[in-house]
């Protein structure tokens, strides 16, 4: 910042003849000023984004253990660790579980969020209060909501099994290896609805009401109005909601970890990376390099989704 300020004052006090000399040297004072103003941002990006990113990729190409982390003498092994992680019997099942977790979460969060947004579009008595209540999952600390879900899903005395029992259903062992993916997905859907509701609701506010009036004059019922007015006009908002939702869901660790420690089918790429990076969960062996490999893979997936979004948006603009 200080560089910027000094160059600006220097430029102000400089006589006009200096301009020529400045150009001959390469950069004009205004350009220096520009650099000065950009520098803090660049430093910020480099220190807090580029450097950790570089370290992450570098870590995935070296074999780090707890000991080599201290000495810094981790041998370069190229893509060995990548081959190891991708070749591990856990890798593809985990990718599949991650895909199920993300896709199912997104579909339900979006569908329920959109349904509620359309519902709340008409204001009725207490509608804003009710809408506010739907934000509760978002406001609760996840340690609270995840623990509550864990209690509710208790196989022996959980309220969900009690409720199912009223209809004569057998109790479900929600958090065992087989069902844990379903259970954490349900909890995550519940957690993501408010986000979808809020963004889609504000998207709905931007659709002019005269379009609905025109549609109803043309004889379109509520259902046709939704499919031919609401849904197409919400498309840009839908795209950003799904993209952000995708990235958020892909990196979810907290709710899964608190409910099941990522055991059984609830292991996703993110929880696996967390477990290996910090020696948590079943194994307290620390695996910095393997965790970095997963981190890099997660980053690439998020990056690809970012480009998909760009393509979709560009097509909409054309």
């Amino acid at each position: 910042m200080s560089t910027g300020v000094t160059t600006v004052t220097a430029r102000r006090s400089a006589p006009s003849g200096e301009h020529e000399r400045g150009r001959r040297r390469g950069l004009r004072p205004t350009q220096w000023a520009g650099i000065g103003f950009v520098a803090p941002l660049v430093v910020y990006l480099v220190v807090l984004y580029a450097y950790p990113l570089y370290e992450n990729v570098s870590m995935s190409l070296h074999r780090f253990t707890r000991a080599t982390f201290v000495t810094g003498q981790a041998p370069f092994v190229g893509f060995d660790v990548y081959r190891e992680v991708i070749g591990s019997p856990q890798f593809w099942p985990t990718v599949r579980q991650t895909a199920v977790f993300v896709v199912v979460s997104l579909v339900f969060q979006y569908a329920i969020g959109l349904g509620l947004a359309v519902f709340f579009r008409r204001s009725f008595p207490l509608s804003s209060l009710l809408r506010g209540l739907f934000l509760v999952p978002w406001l609760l600390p996840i340690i609270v909501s995840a623990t509550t879900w864990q209690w509710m899903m208790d196989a022996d005395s959980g309220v969900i099994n009690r409720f199912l029992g009223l209809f004569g259903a057998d109790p479900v062992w929600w958090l065992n290896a087989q069902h844990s993916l379903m259970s954490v997905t349900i909890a995550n859907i519940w957690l993501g609805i408010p986000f979808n509701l809020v963004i889609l609701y504000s998207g709905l506010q931007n659709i002019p009401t005269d379009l609905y009036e025109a549609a109803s004059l043309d004889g379109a019922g509520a259902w046709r109005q939704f499919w031919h007015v609401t849904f197409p006009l919400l498309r840009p908002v839908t795209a950003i909601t799904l993209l952000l939702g995708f990235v958020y869901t892909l990196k979810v660790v907290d709710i899964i970890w608190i409910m099941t420690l990522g055991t059984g089918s609830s292991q996703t790429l993110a929880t696996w990376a967390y477990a290996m990076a910090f020696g948590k969960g079943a194994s307290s062996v620390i695996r910095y390099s393997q965790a970095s490999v997963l981190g890099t893979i997660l980053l690439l997936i998020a990056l690809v989704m970012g480009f998909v979004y760009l393509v979709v948006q560009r097509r909409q603009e054309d």
Partner: protein
Amino acid sequence: MLNVRKSAVLAGTAALATLALGACSSGGGGGTATTAAGGSTSAAALTSINVWDPYPQYDDSSAWASYVKACAPAGATITRTTAATSDLLNNLTSAVKEDNAPDVIMLDNPAVPDAATAGLLAPAKDVGIDTSGFDANLAGPGTVAGVTYGVPIGANTLGLYYNKDILDKAGVDPASIKDWASLTAALDKVTKAGSKGITFAGISGEEGVFQFLPWFWGSGASLKQPTSDAAVAAGQLLSDWIGKGYAPKSAITDNQSASWDLFLTGQYAFAENGSWFAKAASTQKFKAVMMPIPGQNGGAAPVPTGGEFVLAPVHKADSAAHYAAATKVIACLVGPDNQIKTDDQLGYFAANKDQRAKQIASDPIWTPWAAAIESAQGRTTDLGPDYTATSAQLSTALQGALNAAGDATAVKAAFAQAAKG
């Protein structure tokens, strides 16, 4: 649009940055008095000493916190930092790398070989820690590849608590429980009488393995062959309890506090849990009594030793001053005169036989534990630093076995799967 792309990229990056930076988060630096004048060999004493302990349940206002702080040598103050053992170990890793490790750290005993082989700990001999006078079975984990790094702050172990009221009501004589078969028969009797069976912690990770070891060792299995037939039998025992409804299904996610809370509801007949709950057990509305955990074919099963070690991390700059401070603080915590005081704070046993005898004599609730603690085994004694990987294998096998809910084929498969790694 640029913003959008950036936010997508940044959001992804943020996830990574958490991973990458998290590993680098470092603890407090050691404040050194830089007033050293003259001789380079005699370093000035530290005025600020850092101590890390894995007892986050005791906050800054706790008796434990003031107890630790009172161990500061004259002219120095102690800053205490606390976190779970795995976090402490991670923070210590980066702190040693940056040469700002604490002066004293307490780590759970199975983490000691891992920390020592990673070069995070200074040998006790170099630091000047007095390692004499501790029981061999309790001090074992502090020695890695022939080098002793630290001493136990105290010790704890596991036992089988029972709710005498429930047993009386169901007509079960605790003295009749001598082996696995009679224990399972007792579980059957109490559940038929309308009570619940047994709580234990089967949570994924070291805590679940710690609770599994008495059954594992009680079956005759050895950590050198973690997936042997005997090990499968131990897995089958716990799996059957879940399958038959003797143990809650939540055992797969319960830690020791959660399973203790279940026992405290007064609905369960038995609970496998630690000696650190002995005081709490004596103040319940129901009569909670401890008995040794039975082995498969009778007799008490070997139980694992629990408890933390007091250690001095490696320092490069000004190491003499750091080690001198560490020696003083450690002597204050586990010196012969202070062991009982320290261990009473933590609910632990003194790790020195004579001290422990005094401690047990002073409070009758410890009496049933005396034999258990003496015959307890260190988890890392057989394997050293390899224990961590074996424990992970056992944890995977145990989770599979509990999930199988009694299905013998699935229990076998879980151990076979874990053997492959």
